[in-house]
Protein backbone atom coordinates (compact mmCIF):
# COMPACT_ATOMS: atom_id res chain seq x y z
CA UNK A 1 0.00 0.00 0.00
CA UNK A 2 2.69 2.42 1.04
CA UNK A 3 4.01 4.08 -2.08
CA UNK A 4 7.17 5.00 -0.21
CA UNK A 5 8.55 1.50 0.11
CA UNK A 6 8.29 -0.72 -2.95
CA UNK A 7 8.35 -4.48 -2.75
CA UNK A 8 10.84 -4.65 -5.55
CA UNK A 9 12.93 -1.81 -6.88
CA UNK A 10 15.05 -2.16 -9.99
CA UNK A 11 17.59 0.64 -10.21
CA UNK A 12 19.91 1.28 -13.12
CA UNK A 13 19.97 -2.37 -14.17
CA UNK A 14 22.49 -3.03 -16.94
CA UNK A 15 22.95 -6.51 -18.39
CA UNK A 16 25.21 -7.43 -21.26
CA UNK A 17 26.06 -10.46 -23.37
CA UNK A 18 29.71 -9.95 -24.35
CA UNK A 19 29.62 -6.62 -26.20
CA UNK A 20 25.86 -6.46 -26.57
CA UNK A 21 24.01 -4.49 -23.90
CA UNK A 22 20.64 -6.23 -23.54
CA UNK A 23 19.30 -4.06 -20.71
CA UNK A 24 20.66 -0.56 -20.36
CA UNK A 25 20.10 1.38 -17.15
CA UNK A 26 16.56 0.18 -16.47
CA UNK A 27 14.73 1.41 -13.36
CA UNK A 28 11.21 0.72 -12.12
CA UNK A 29 9.37 -0.07 -8.88
CA UNK A 30 6.83 -2.75 -8.03
CA UNK A 31 4.42 -2.42 -5.10
CA UNK A 32 2.31 -4.99 -3.29
CA UNK A 33 -0.77 -6.20 -5.15
CA UNK A 34 0.25 -4.25 -8.23
CA UNK A 35 0.75 -5.41 -11.81
CA UNK A 36 3.57 -3.83 -13.76
CA UNK A 37 3.61 -4.73 -17.44
CA UNK A 38 6.91 -4.58 -19.28
CA UNK A 39 6.09 -4.21 -22.96
CA UNK A 40 8.24 -4.08 -26.03
CA UNK A 41 8.99 -5.89 -29.24
CA UNK A 42 11.33 -8.84 -29.80
CA UNK A 43 14.81 -8.15 -28.52
CA UNK A 44 13.85 -5.08 -26.49
CA UNK A 45 15.25 -6.63 -23.30
CA UNK A 46 12.05 -7.46 -21.46
CA UNK A 47 12.74 -11.16 -20.88
CA UNK A 48 16.35 -10.48 -19.93
CA UNK A 49 14.99 -8.11 -17.29
CA UNK A 50 12.77 -10.86 -15.90
CA UNK A 51 15.61 -13.38 -15.87
CA UNK A 52 17.87 -10.83 -14.16
CA UNK A 53 15.40 -10.37 -11.31
CA UNK A 54 15.38 -14.14 -10.84
CA UNK A 55 19.19 -14.02 -11.22
CA UNK A 56 18.80 -16.75 -13.82
CA UNK A 57 20.28 -14.66 -16.60
CA UNK A 58 23.90 -15.49 -15.87
CA UNK A 59 23.39 -19.23 -15.37
CA UNK A 60 25.06 -21.09 -18.21
CA UNK A 61 25.33 -17.99 -20.39
CA UNK A 62 27.94 -15.35 -21.06
CA UNK A 63 25.66 -12.67 -19.68
CA UNK A 64 26.75 -10.45 -16.85
CA UNK A 65 24.94 -7.94 -14.69
CA UNK A 66 27.28 -4.99 -15.10
CA UNK A 67 25.57 -2.35 -13.06
CA UNK A 68 22.54 -1.49 -10.97
CA UNK A 69 20.69 -3.06 -8.09
CA UNK A 70 17.51 -5.06 -7.63
CA UNK A 71 16.23 -4.32 -4.14
CA UNK A 72 13.75 -6.87 -2.83
CA UNK A 73 11.85 -6.58 0.44
CA UNK A 74 11.63 -10.07 1.93
CA UNK A 75 8.54 -11.18 3.89
CA UNK A 76 10.49 -10.59 7.15
CA UNK A 77 10.89 -6.93 6.19
CA UNK A 78 14.61 -7.00 5.39
CA UNK A 79 15.64 -5.44 2.08
CA UNK A 80 18.33 -7.20 0.06
CA UNK A 81 20.01 -6.52 -3.27
CA UNK A 82 19.38 -9.59 -5.44
CA UNK A 83 22.33 -8.70 -7.68
CA UNK A 84 24.85 -9.39 -4.92
CA UNK A 85 23.22 -12.35 -3.17
CA UNK A 86 25.01 -15.71 -3.09
CA UNK A 87 23.40 -18.68 -4.78
CA UNK A 88 22.08 -20.28 -1.56
CA UNK A 89 20.09 -17.17 -0.66
CA UNK A 90 18.77 -16.93 -4.21
CA UNK A 91 17.72 -20.58 -4.09
CA UNK A 92 15.60 -19.80 -1.05
CA UNK A 93 13.95 -16.90 -2.89
CA UNK A 94 13.35 -18.41 -6.32
CA UNK A 95 10.09 -20.28 -6.58
CA UNK A 96 9.37 -19.36 -2.98
CA UNK A 97 9.20 -15.59 -2.56
CA UNK A 98 9.59 -14.70 -6.24
CA UNK A 99 8.32 -17.20 -8.75
CA UNK A 100 7.98 -17.24 -12.48
CA UNK A 101 5.82 -18.67 -15.24
CA UNK A 102 6.84 -18.88 -18.88
CA UNK A 103 5.23 -18.80 -22.28
CA UNK A 104 5.33 -22.48 -23.11
CA UNK A 105 4.15 -24.63 -20.21
CA UNK A 106 5.06 -27.88 -21.92
CA UNK A 107 8.76 -27.02 -21.92
CA UNK A 108 8.55 -25.90 -18.28
CA UNK A 109 7.02 -29.14 -17.05
CA UNK A 110 8.92 -32.37 -16.69
CA UNK A 111 7.35 -34.94 -19.05
CA UNK A 112 8.17 -37.96 -16.86
CA UNK A 113 6.62 -36.81 -13.59
CA UNK A 114 2.94 -36.40 -12.81
CA UNK A 115 1.79 -32.82 -12.39
CA UNK A 116 0.93 -33.61 -8.77
CA UNK A 117 4.53 -34.52 -8.03
CA UNK A 118 5.79 -31.39 -9.73
CA UNK A 119 3.52 -29.06 -7.79
CA UNK A 120 4.37 -30.92 -4.58
CA UNK A 121 8.11 -30.65 -5.21
CA UNK A 122 8.19 -26.91 -4.67
CA UNK A 123 6.46 -27.01 -1.28
CA UNK A 124 8.54 -29.98 -0.09
CA UNK A 125 11.69 -28.12 -1.01
CA UNK A 126 10.82 -24.69 0.30
CA UNK A 127 8.39 -25.32 3.11
CA UNK A 128 9.67 -28.66 4.36
CA UNK A 129 6.33 -30.44 4.02
CA UNK A 130 6.38 -34.25 3.95
CA UNK A 131 5.13 -36.09 0.89
CA UNK A 132 1.55 -36.56 2.10
CA UNK A 133 1.15 -32.94 3.20
CA UNK A 134 2.74 -31.76 -0.04
CA UNK A 135 0.33 -33.85 -2.12
CA UNK A 136 -2.54 -32.34 -0.14
CA UNK A 137 -1.16 -28.87 -0.83
CA UNK A 138 -0.83 -29.74 -4.56
CA UNK A 139 -4.48 -30.75 -4.63
CA UNK A 140 -5.50 -27.48 -2.96
CA UNK A 141 -3.45 -25.54 -5.49
CA UNK A 142 -4.99 -27.30 -8.50
CA UNK A 143 -8.43 -26.56 -7.09
CA UNK A 144 -7.41 -22.97 -6.53
CA UNK A 145 -6.51 -22.54 -10.20
CA UNK A 146 -9.97 -24.00 -11.00
CA UNK A 147 -8.80 -27.23 -12.60
CA UNK A 148 -11.89 -29.46 -12.80
CA UNK A 149 -11.57 -32.91 -11.18
CA UNK A 150 -8.31 -31.84 -9.55
CA UNK A 151 -7.80 -35.11 -7.68
CA UNK A 152 -7.68 -37.05 -10.97
CA UNK A 153 -5.57 -34.44 -12.68
CA UNK A 154 -2.87 -34.78 -9.99
CA UNK A 155 -2.03 -38.21 -11.36
CA UNK A 156 -1.79 -37.08 -14.97
CA UNK A 157 1.33 -36.33 -16.99
CA UNK A 158 1.78 -33.02 -18.82
CA UNK A 159 1.14 -34.53 -22.27
CA UNK A 160 -2.32 -35.64 -21.14
CA UNK A 161 -3.38 -32.03 -20.61
CA UNK A 162 -4.33 -29.19 -22.94
CA UNK A 163 -2.20 -26.04 -23.18
CA UNK A 164 -4.61 -24.08 -21.01
CA UNK A 165 -4.64 -26.75 -18.29
CA UNK A 166 -0.85 -26.94 -18.35
CA UNK A 167 -0.59 -23.21 -17.86
CA UNK A 168 -2.97 -23.54 -14.90
CA UNK A 169 -0.61 -26.17 -13.47
CA UNK A 170 2.32 -23.78 -13.92
CA UNK A 171 0.40 -21.07 -12.09
CA UNK A 172 -0.49 -23.52 -9.32
CA UNK A 173 3.17 -24.44 -8.99
CA UNK A 174 4.29 -20.81 -9.02
CA UNK A 175 1.81 -19.81 -6.33
CA UNK A 176 2.21 -22.90 -4.15
CA UNK A 177 4.67 -21.20 -1.76
CA UNK A 178 2.69 -17.94 -1.57
CA UNK A 179 5.27 -15.75 -3.33
CA UNK A 180 5.03 -12.00 -2.92
CA UNK A 181 6.18 -11.45 -6.52
CA UNK A 182 5.07 -13.42 -9.58
CA UNK A 183 6.90 -12.86 -12.85
CA UNK A 184 4.85 -13.94 -15.85
CA UNK A 185 6.79 -13.96 -19.13
CA UNK A 186 4.30 -13.99 -22.03
CA UNK A 187 2.02 -16.33 -20.02
CA UNK A 188 -0.83 -16.36 -22.54
CA UNK A 189 1.02 -15.85 -25.82
CA UNK A 190 0.93 -19.52 -26.81
CA UNK A 191 -2.73 -19.95 -25.86
CA UNK A 192 -5.87 -19.61 -27.95
CA UNK A 193 -7.79 -16.44 -27.37
CA UNK A 194 -10.68 -18.00 -25.42
CA UNK A 195 -8.20 -19.83 -23.19
CA UNK A 196 -6.14 -16.65 -22.84
CA UNK A 197 -9.26 -14.89 -21.57
CA UNK A 198 -9.72 -17.66 -18.97
CA UNK A 199 -6.12 -17.48 -17.79
CA UNK A 200 -6.12 -13.67 -17.57
CA UNK A 201 -9.33 -13.84 -15.55
CA UNK A 202 -7.82 -16.48 -13.30
CA UNK A 203 -4.61 -14.51 -12.75
CA UNK A 204 -6.57 -11.41 -11.83
CA UNK A 205 -8.75 -13.36 -9.38
CA UNK A 206 -5.73 -15.04 -7.76
CA UNK A 207 -3.93 -11.73 -7.45
CA UNK A 208 -6.97 -10.42 -5.64
CA UNK A 209 -6.91 -13.39 -3.27
CA UNK A 210 -3.18 -13.39 -2.56
CA UNK A 211 -2.23 -9.72 -3.00
CA UNK A 212 0.86 -10.86 -4.90
CA UNK A 213 2.60 -8.32 -7.08
CA UNK A 214 2.92 -9.29 -10.74
CA UNK A 215 5.50 -8.38 -13.34
CA UNK A 216 3.91 -9.19 -16.68
CA UNK A 217 6.20 -9.42 -19.66
CA UNK A 218 4.24 -9.14 -22.89
CA UNK A 219 4.23 -7.81 -26.43
CA UNK A 220 0.42 -7.69 -26.51
CA UNK A 221 -0.99 -4.21 -25.83
CA UNK A 222 -4.49 -5.70 -25.51
CA UNK A 223 -3.34 -7.83 -22.58
CA UNK A 224 -1.56 -4.81 -21.07
CA UNK A 225 -4.68 -2.67 -21.30
CA UNK A 226 -6.67 -5.41 -19.63
CA UNK A 227 -4.51 -6.25 -16.62
CA UNK A 228 -1.73 -3.72 -15.95
CA UNK A 229 -1.67 -0.99 -13.33
CA UNK A 230 1.69 0.40 -14.38
CA UNK A 231 3.41 0.07 -17.75
CA UNK A 232 7.11 0.10 -18.58
CA UNK A 233 7.75 0.50 -22.32
CA UNK A 234 11.10 -0.83 -23.53
CA UNK A 235 12.82 -0.49 -26.88
CA UNK A 236 16.34 -1.54 -27.80
CA UNK A 237 17.41 -2.36 -24.26
CA UNK A 238 16.28 0.96 -22.83
CA UNK A 239 13.28 2.24 -20.97
CA UNK A 240 11.27 4.49 -23.29
CA UNK A 241 8.67 5.66 -20.83
CA UNK A 242 6.81 4.38 -17.80
CA UNK A 243 3.61 5.33 -16.03
CA UNK A 244 0.06 4.38 -15.07
CA UNK A 245 -1.68 2.33 -17.77
CA UNK A 246 -4.23 5.04 -18.63
CA UNK A 247 -1.52 7.64 -19.14
CA UNK A 248 0.51 5.40 -21.41
CA UNK A 249 -2.48 4.58 -23.62
CA UNK A 250 -4.08 8.00 -23.69
CA UNK A 251 -1.19 10.42 -23.33
CA UNK A 252 1.94 8.67 -24.58
CA UNK A 253 4.81 11.12 -24.59
CA UNK A 254 7.49 9.35 -26.56
CA UNK A 255 7.40 8.83 -30.32
CA UNK A 256 8.19 5.16 -29.94
CA UNK A 257 5.18 4.57 -27.67
CA UNK A 258 2.95 6.48 -30.09
CA UNK A 259 4.25 4.40 -33.02
CA UNK A 260 3.74 1.18 -31.07
CA UNK A 261 0.18 2.06 -30.13
CA UNK A 262 -0.67 3.13 -33.69
CA UNK A 263 0.29 -0.29 -35.01
CA UNK A 264 -1.89 -2.22 -32.56
CA UNK A 265 -4.99 -3.64 -34.21
CA UNK A 266 -8.00 -2.80 -32.06
CA UNK A 267 -11.11 -4.89 -32.25
CA UNK A 268 -14.09 -2.71 -33.10
CA UNK A 269 -12.02 0.01 -34.76
CA UNK A 270 -13.60 -0.80 -38.11
CA UNK A 271 -17.21 -0.61 -36.94
CA UNK A 272 -19.53 0.96 -39.49
CA UNK A 273 -17.25 0.24 -42.46
CA UNK A 274 -17.29 -2.57 -45.01
CA UNK A 275 -13.93 -2.32 -46.79
CA UNK A 276 -10.52 -3.24 -45.39
CA UNK A 277 -8.40 -0.32 -44.24
CA UNK A 278 -4.67 0.18 -43.89
CA UNK A 279 -3.13 0.87 -40.52
CA UNK A 280 -2.50 4.57 -40.06
CA UNK A 281 1.10 4.19 -38.97
CA UNK A 282 3.19 6.74 -37.16
CA UNK A 283 6.72 7.12 -38.49
CA UNK A 284 9.34 6.25 -35.98
CA UNK A 285 13.02 6.47 -36.76
CA UNK A 286 14.95 4.32 -34.38
Amino acid at each position, binding site marked *: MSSSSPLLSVRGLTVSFDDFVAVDGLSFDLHEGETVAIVG*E*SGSGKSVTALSIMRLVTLGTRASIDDGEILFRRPDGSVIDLVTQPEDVLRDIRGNQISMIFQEPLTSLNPVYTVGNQVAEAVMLHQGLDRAAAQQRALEMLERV*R*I*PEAANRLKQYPHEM*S*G*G*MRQRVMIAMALSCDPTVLIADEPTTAL*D*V*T*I*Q*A*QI*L*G*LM*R*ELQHETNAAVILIT*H*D*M*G*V*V*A*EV*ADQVVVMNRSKLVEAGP*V*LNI*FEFPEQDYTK*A*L*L*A*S*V*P*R*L*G*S*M*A*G*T*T*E*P*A*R*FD*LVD*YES
Partner: protein
Amino acid sequence: MTDSLVEVQNLSKAFPVAGGAKVHAVENVSLQIGRGETLAVVGESGCGKSTLAHLIIRLLDPTSGTVLLDGDDITDLGQRALRPHRQKMQIIFQDPFASLDPRRPVGRAVGEPLLIHKKASGATADTLVEELFHLVGLEGSMMRQYPHQFSGGQRQRICIARALALEPELVIADEAVSALDVSVQAQVVNLMMDLQQDMGLSYLFISHDLAVVERISHRVAVMYLGQIVELGPRSAIFENPQHSYTKRLLSAVPIADPRKRVERPLLTDEIPSPLWGPGTAPNHVELVEIEPGHFAAIEE
Protein backbone atom coordinates in the same frame (compact mmCIF):
# COMPACT_ATOMS: atom_id res chain seq x y z
CA MET B 1 -21.73 -18.16 -63.79
CA THR B 2 -20.55 -16.39 -60.70
CA ASP B 3 -17.49 -14.22 -60.46
CA SER B 4 -15.96 -16.45 -57.78
CA LEU B 5 -12.30 -17.27 -58.20
CA VAL B 6 -12.50 -20.21 -55.83
CA GLU B 7 -15.51 -22.33 -55.14
CA VAL B 8 -15.32 -25.00 -52.47
CA GLN B 9 -18.17 -27.47 -52.23
CA ASN B 10 -18.79 -29.87 -49.33
CA LEU B 11 -15.08 -30.30 -48.72
CA SER B 12 -14.06 -32.82 -46.04
CA LYS B 13 -10.80 -34.23 -44.76
CA ALA B 14 -10.59 -36.99 -42.18
CA PHE B 15 -7.21 -38.21 -40.97
CA PRO B 16 -7.21 -41.83 -39.83
CA VAL B 17 -5.58 -42.55 -36.48
CA ALA B 18 -4.86 -45.80 -34.66
CA GLY B 19 -7.79 -48.09 -33.89
CA GLY B 20 -10.02 -46.99 -36.75
CA ALA B 21 -10.82 -43.59 -35.26
CA LYS B 22 -10.61 -40.48 -37.42
CA VAL B 23 -9.84 -36.83 -36.86
CA HIS B 24 -12.46 -34.93 -38.81
CA ALA B 25 -10.28 -31.90 -39.46
CA VAL B 26 -12.46 -30.34 -42.14
CA GLU B 27 -16.08 -31.39 -42.41
CA ASN B 28 -18.46 -30.46 -45.20
CA VAL B 29 -17.11 -26.98 -45.83
CA SER B 30 -18.52 -24.90 -48.67
CA LEU B 31 -17.40 -21.37 -49.50
CA GLN B 32 -16.48 -19.01 -52.32
CA ILE B 33 -13.71 -16.48 -52.69
CA GLY B 34 -14.46 -13.60 -55.06
CA ARG B 35 -11.93 -11.87 -57.28
CA GLY B 36 -10.06 -9.13 -55.46
CA GLU B 37 -11.63 -10.25 -52.21
CA THR B 38 -10.12 -11.21 -48.86
CA LEU B 39 -11.88 -14.05 -47.14
CA ALA B 40 -10.61 -14.60 -43.62
CA VAL B 41 -10.96 -17.95 -41.92
CA VAL B 42 -10.81 -17.64 -38.14
CA GLY B 43 -10.90 -20.15 -35.35
CA GLU B 44 -8.74 -21.65 -32.64
CA SER B 45 -5.99 -24.27 -32.74
CA GLY B 46 -7.20 -27.48 -34.29
CA CYS B 47 -10.36 -26.05 -35.83
CA GLY B 48 -9.21 -27.10 -39.30
CA LYS B 49 -8.38 -23.72 -40.80
CA SER B 50 -4.89 -24.67 -42.00
CA THR B 51 -6.11 -28.04 -43.27
CA LEU B 52 -8.77 -26.19 -45.27
CA ALA B 53 -6.08 -23.96 -46.81
CA HIS B 54 -3.94 -26.95 -47.70
CA LEU B 55 -6.93 -28.71 -49.30
CA ILE B 56 -7.74 -25.69 -51.45
CA ILE B 57 -4.18 -25.39 -52.72
CA ARG B 58 -4.02 -29.20 -53.09
CA LEU B 59 -1.18 -29.77 -50.67
CA LEU B 60 -3.58 -32.30 -49.16
CA ASP B 61 -6.10 -34.48 -50.94
CA PRO B 62 -9.65 -34.19 -49.67
CA THR B 63 -11.65 -37.18 -48.44
CA SER B 64 -14.64 -35.82 -50.33
CA GLY B 65 -15.91 -32.63 -51.92
CA THR B 66 -14.67 -30.44 -54.76
CA VAL B 67 -12.45 -27.41 -55.28
CA LEU B 68 -13.07 -25.21 -58.33
CA LEU B 69 -10.45 -22.67 -59.33
CA ASP B 70 -11.49 -20.24 -62.05
CA GLY B 71 -14.31 -22.64 -62.87
CA ASP B 72 -11.98 -25.63 -63.32
CA ASP B 73 -12.39 -28.64 -61.06
CA ILE B 74 -8.90 -29.21 -59.64
CA THR B 75 -9.91 -31.71 -56.97
CA ASP B 76 -8.59 -34.85 -58.63
CA LEU B 77 -5.88 -33.50 -60.93
CA GLY B 78 -2.47 -35.21 -60.82
CA GLN B 79 0.70 -33.25 -60.17
CA ARG B 80 1.42 -32.60 -63.86
CA ALA B 81 -2.12 -31.57 -64.74
CA LEU B 82 -2.20 -29.39 -61.64
CA ARG B 83 0.89 -27.40 -62.55
CA PRO B 84 -0.76 -24.73 -64.75
CA HIS B 85 -3.34 -24.18 -62.01
CA ARG B 86 -0.65 -23.94 -59.34
CA GLN B 87 0.56 -20.72 -60.96
CA LYS B 88 -2.70 -19.11 -60.07
CA MET B 89 -2.48 -19.89 -56.37
CA GLN B 90 0.34 -19.40 -53.91
CA ILE B 91 0.73 -19.78 -50.17
CA ILE B 92 2.66 -17.88 -47.51
CA PHE B 93 3.31 -19.56 -44.16
CA GLN B 94 3.70 -18.32 -40.61
CA ASP B 95 7.44 -18.75 -40.22
CA PRO B 96 9.38 -17.19 -43.11
CA PHE B 97 12.68 -18.53 -41.79
CA ALA B 98 11.41 -22.10 -42.16
CA SER B 99 10.19 -21.31 -45.68
CA LEU B 100 13.52 -20.11 -47.05
CA ASP B 101 16.59 -22.26 -47.79
CA PRO B 102 19.31 -20.99 -45.43
CA ARG B 103 22.07 -21.82 -47.93
CA ARG B 104 20.72 -20.01 -50.97
CA PRO B 105 20.61 -16.29 -51.65
CA VAL B 106 17.05 -15.04 -51.27
CA GLY B 107 16.96 -13.81 -54.86
CA ARG B 108 17.28 -17.42 -56.00
CA ALA B 109 14.28 -18.38 -53.85
CA VAL B 110 12.18 -15.59 -55.32
CA GLY B 111 13.28 -16.42 -58.87
CA GLU B 112 12.79 -20.17 -58.60
CA PRO B 113 9.08 -20.21 -59.52
CA LEU B 114 9.95 -18.31 -62.72
CA LEU B 115 12.48 -20.99 -63.68
CA ILE B 116 10.26 -23.93 -62.75
CA HIS B 117 7.34 -22.60 -64.72
CA LYS B 118 9.67 -21.51 -67.57
CA LYS B 119 8.48 -17.92 -67.37
CA ALA B 120 11.94 -16.40 -67.52
CA SER B 121 15.58 -17.23 -67.09
CA GLY B 122 18.99 -15.59 -66.89
CA ALA B 123 19.12 -11.80 -66.95
CA THR B 124 15.38 -11.50 -67.62
CA ALA B 125 14.64 -13.48 -64.46
CA ASP B 126 17.07 -11.31 -62.46
CA THR B 127 15.29 -8.18 -63.65
CA LEU B 128 11.92 -9.63 -62.68
CA VAL B 129 13.24 -10.64 -59.26
CA GLU B 130 14.57 -7.12 -58.72
CA GLU B 131 11.14 -5.71 -59.60
CA LEU B 132 9.53 -8.13 -57.15
CA PHE B 133 11.90 -6.94 -54.41
CA HIS B 134 10.90 -3.34 -55.11
CA LEU B 135 7.24 -4.35 -55.11
CA VAL B 136 7.47 -5.58 -51.51
CA GLY B 137 9.57 -2.66 -50.34
CA LEU B 138 13.06 -4.22 -50.41
CA GLU B 139 16.24 -3.08 -52.17
CA GLY B 140 17.14 -4.99 -55.35
CA SER B 141 20.69 -5.43 -54.07
CA MET B 142 19.35 -7.59 -51.22
CA MET B 143 18.84 -10.40 -53.76
CA ARG B 144 22.33 -11.71 -53.13
CA GLN B 145 21.98 -11.91 -49.35
CA TYR B 146 21.04 -14.97 -47.31
CA PRO B 147 17.94 -15.45 -45.11
CA HIS B 148 19.82 -15.05 -41.82
CA GLN B 149 20.86 -11.54 -42.85
CA PHE B 150 17.26 -10.33 -42.74
CA SER B 151 14.81 -9.47 -39.98
CA GLY B 152 11.58 -11.45 -39.58
CA GLY B 153 9.54 -8.78 -41.33
CA GLN B 154 11.96 -8.60 -44.26
CA ARG B 155 11.91 -12.39 -44.59
CA GLN B 156 8.14 -12.38 -44.76
CA ARG B 157 8.36 -9.70 -47.48
CA ILE B 158 10.70 -12.04 -49.38
CA CYS B 159 8.15 -14.87 -49.07
CA ILE B 160 5.46 -12.51 -50.38
CA ALA B 161 7.72 -11.56 -53.31
CA ARG B 162 8.18 -15.25 -54.11
CA ALA B 163 4.44 -15.87 -53.88
CA LEU B 164 3.84 -13.04 -56.36
CA ALA B 165 6.49 -14.13 -58.89
CA LEU B 166 4.01 -15.99 -61.07
CA GLU B 167 1.36 -13.26 -60.84
CA PRO B 168 -1.12 -15.48 -59.01
CA GLU B 169 -4.78 -14.71 -58.61
CA LEU B 170 -5.11 -16.27 -55.16
CA VAL B 171 -2.68 -15.93 -52.28
CA ILE B 172 -3.27 -18.01 -49.19
CA ALA B 173 -1.78 -16.43 -46.09
CA ASP B 174 -1.64 -19.07 -43.36
CA GLU B 175 -0.99 -17.10 -40.15
CA ALA B 176 1.41 -15.09 -42.30
CA VAL B 177 1.69 -12.13 -39.91
CA SER B 178 1.20 -13.97 -36.61
CA ALA B 179 4.89 -14.33 -35.74
CA LEU B 180 5.76 -10.71 -36.47
CA ASP B 181 6.16 -7.91 -33.97
CA VAL B 182 3.16 -5.65 -33.91
CA SER B 183 4.74 -2.68 -35.74
CA VAL B 184 6.14 -4.99 -38.42
CA GLN B 185 2.85 -6.85 -38.60
CA ALA B 186 1.03 -3.61 -39.34
CA GLN B 187 3.50 -2.79 -42.14
CA VAL B 188 3.14 -6.23 -43.74
CA VAL B 189 -0.67 -6.08 -43.49
CA ASN B 190 -0.57 -2.67 -45.18
CA LEU B 191 1.69 -4.08 -47.90
CA MET B 192 -0.73 -6.95 -48.50
CA MET B 193 -3.63 -4.51 -48.85
CA ASP B 194 -1.65 -2.30 -51.25
CA LEU B 195 -0.75 -5.31 -53.40
CA GLN B 196 -4.38 -6.37 -53.47
CA GLN B 197 -5.38 -2.92 -54.71
CA ASP B 198 -2.67 -2.85 -57.37
CA MET B 199 -2.88 -6.43 -58.61
CA GLY B 200 -6.47 -7.43 -57.91
CA LEU B 201 -5.34 -10.34 -55.74
CA SER B 202 -7.71 -12.54 -53.79
CA TYR B 203 -6.61 -13.56 -50.33
CA LEU B 204 -7.57 -16.49 -48.18
CA PHE B 205 -6.37 -15.09 -44.87
CA ILE B 206 -6.07 -17.79 -42.21
CA SER B 207 -5.67 -16.30 -38.75
CA HIS B 208 -6.48 -16.68 -35.11
CA ASP B 209 -6.12 -12.92 -34.56
CA LEU B 210 -9.53 -11.32 -34.85
CA ALA B 211 -8.28 -7.76 -34.56
CA VAL B 212 -6.02 -8.20 -37.61
CA VAL B 213 -8.80 -10.00 -39.47
CA GLU B 214 -11.14 -7.08 -38.85
CA ARG B 215 -8.63 -4.81 -40.62
CA ILE B 216 -7.88 -6.88 -43.68
CA SER B 217 -10.96 -8.87 -44.64
CA HIS B 218 -14.06 -8.33 -46.74
CA ARG B 219 -15.74 -11.50 -45.54
CA VAL B 220 -15.13 -13.85 -42.64
CA ALA B 221 -15.73 -17.57 -42.05
CA VAL B 222 -15.70 -18.80 -38.46
CA MET B 223 -14.59 -22.41 -38.06
CA TYR B 224 -15.28 -24.64 -35.11
CA LEU B 225 -14.39 -28.34 -34.97
CA GLY B 226 -13.82 -28.55 -38.71
CA GLN B 227 -17.04 -26.88 -39.76
CA ILE B 228 -18.02 -23.35 -40.66
CA VAL B 229 -20.47 -22.13 -38.03
CA GLU B 230 -20.80 -18.59 -39.35
CA LEU B 231 -19.95 -16.91 -42.63
CA GLY B 232 -20.67 -13.43 -43.84
CA PRO B 233 -19.51 -9.90 -44.57
CA ARG B 234 -16.87 -8.74 -42.10
CA SER B 235 -19.12 -6.02 -40.70
CA ALA B 236 -21.92 -8.53 -40.07
CA ILE B 237 -19.67 -11.02 -38.30
CA PHE B 238 -18.04 -8.40 -36.08
CA GLU B 239 -21.03 -6.16 -35.42
CA ASN B 240 -23.89 -8.65 -35.51
CA PRO B 241 -22.49 -12.08 -34.61
CA GLN B 242 -25.14 -14.79 -34.38
CA HIS B 243 -23.46 -18.04 -33.41
CA SER B 244 -22.53 -18.55 -29.75
CA TYR B 245 -18.97 -19.54 -30.70
CA THR B 246 -18.45 -16.38 -32.78
CA LYS B 247 -19.69 -14.32 -29.84
CA ARG B 248 -17.41 -16.15 -27.48
CA LEU B 249 -14.37 -15.65 -29.71
CA LEU B 250 -15.07 -11.94 -30.09
CA SER B 251 -15.66 -11.38 -26.39
CA ALA B 252 -12.38 -13.12 -25.52
CA VAL B 253 -10.21 -10.67 -27.46
CA PRO B 254 -8.43 -8.27 -25.12
CA ILE B 255 -9.20 -4.69 -26.06
CA ALA B 256 -6.23 -2.32 -26.22
CA ASP B 257 -8.07 0.31 -24.21
CA PRO B 258 -7.71 0.32 -20.42
CA ARG B 259 -11.08 2.07 -20.07
CA LYS B 260 -12.84 -0.94 -21.58
CA ARG B 261 -11.87 -3.60 -19.08
CA VAL B 262 -14.32 -6.44 -18.81
CA GLU B 263 -14.93 -9.02 -16.12
CA ARG B 264 -13.72 -12.40 -17.32
CA PRO B 265 -15.82 -15.34 -16.19
CA LEU B 266 -13.70 -18.02 -14.51
CA LEU B 267 -14.56 -20.68 -17.07
CA THR B 268 -12.59 -23.83 -17.54
CA ASP B 269 -14.43 -25.37 -20.46
CA GLU B 270 -12.42 -26.20 -23.53
CA ILE B 271 -13.07 -27.13 -27.12
CA PRO B 272 -13.98 -30.82 -27.54
CA SER B 273 -11.83 -33.17 -29.59
CA PRO B 274 -12.43 -33.57 -33.33
CA LEU B 275 -11.52 -37.25 -32.91
CA TRP B 276 -14.35 -39.65 -33.73
CA GLY B 277 -14.34 -43.36 -33.01
CA PRO B 278 -14.85 -46.09 -35.62
CA GLY B 279 -18.23 -45.87 -37.31
CA THR B 280 -19.05 -42.48 -35.81
CA ALA B 281 -18.94 -39.06 -37.40
CA PRO B 282 -19.89 -35.51 -36.48
CA ASN B 283 -23.31 -34.18 -37.38
CA HIS B 284 -23.23 -31.60 -40.11
CA VAL B 285 -24.28 -28.17 -38.98
CA GLU B 286 -26.94 -26.49 -41.05
CA LEU B 287 -26.30 -22.91 -42.11
CA VAL B 288 -29.22 -20.54 -42.59
CA GLU B 289 -29.09 -17.14 -44.25
CA ILE B 290 -30.16 -14.62 -41.65
CA GLU B 291 -29.48 -11.54 -43.75
CA PRO B 292 -28.11 -11.20 -47.29
CA GLY B 293 -24.81 -13.08 -47.46
CA HIS B 294 -24.70 -13.73 -43.70
CA PHE B 295 -25.03 -17.40 -42.77
CA ALA B 296 -25.04 -18.91 -39.30
CA ALA B 297 -25.40 -22.42 -37.99
CA ILE B 298 -28.61 -23.33 -36.21
CA GLU B 299 -27.99 -24.17 -32.56
CA GLU B 300 -30.12 -26.34 -30.32
